[in-house]
């Protein structure tokens, strides 16, 4: 199994997530892009961790990343729901009350 392909896969997932975050205006699509980027980081950590079956730092770090991603999704979605109740839209470009 070529090791480089794993890193290519991680890079592709990260860039696809970045593209989704940059080009979409809906807040939920932005969250989906962030989840993709977190998964790309996990792939890289576990790919390198598989060469060290004793210490396993990479796997433990990826558990923490998954936990933080879950917390981030819960808080983010609750904020989006509240923003939708207030502004009647989830479009990030129309939520511009703070713009001077």
């Amino acid at each position, binding site marked *: *199994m*070529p*090791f*480089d*392909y*794993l*890193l*290519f*896969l991680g*890079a*592709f*997932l*990260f*860039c*696809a997530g*970045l*593209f*989704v975050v*940059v*080009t*979409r205006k*809906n807040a*939920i*699509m932005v*969250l*989906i892009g962030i*989840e*993709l980027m977190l*998964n790309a980081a*996990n*792939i890289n950590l*576990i790919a390198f*961790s*598989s*060469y060290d*079956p*004793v210490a*396993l730092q990479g*796997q*433990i770090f*990826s*558990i*923490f990343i*998954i*936990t*933080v*991603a*879950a*917390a*981030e*999704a*819960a*808080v983010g*979605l*609750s*904020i*989006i*729901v509240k923003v*939708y109740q207030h502004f009647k839209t*989830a479009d990030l470009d129309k939520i511009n009350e703070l713009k001077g």
Partner: protein
Amino acid sequence: METSNIIFYIFGAITVLSTLYIVLTKNILYAAFALILTFIGVAGIFIFLGAEFIAVTQILVYVGGILILLVFGIMLTNRLSEKKVVSPSYNKLFGFVIAGGLFVLLIKGILQANFSALGWINQETSSPSGIREFGMTLMTDYVLAFEIIGLLLLLALIGAVRIAGNTRKEAEDAI
């Protein structure tokens, strides 16, 4: 070609194709469903790399938790009246330049680092099942970080309920 290589390519293809679908589709709900496929493909790659516990956690947390939250979020933030829940892309050119430029940069870096030439990459890596070692490490060396991450999760869930729920005044106004 070995069997493990074929399995790796199958899961990699699932991941890449469903990610491309997320990038290309306009429908938010279809993107969320394609995200399930992406997570399952990534979990397969984790099993392939000898991280079974992470793979199961990935499916439990992402597919069982975050995806459900996302679908509920889509339901609550769109008026589902015959219309499809679409979110077209904007600034495609700039987005493509930024993401593509970063991708080319990362690929060049990976190719130049030339990991295959490193000694520890080529040594035998077959670890039958690292779950026992993983549990021992998590509960001894990293137990403080483990407890703190549990506390963070508790705080985040309480905060999420507090933010999304109605305050007492809003609840009284609604009556």
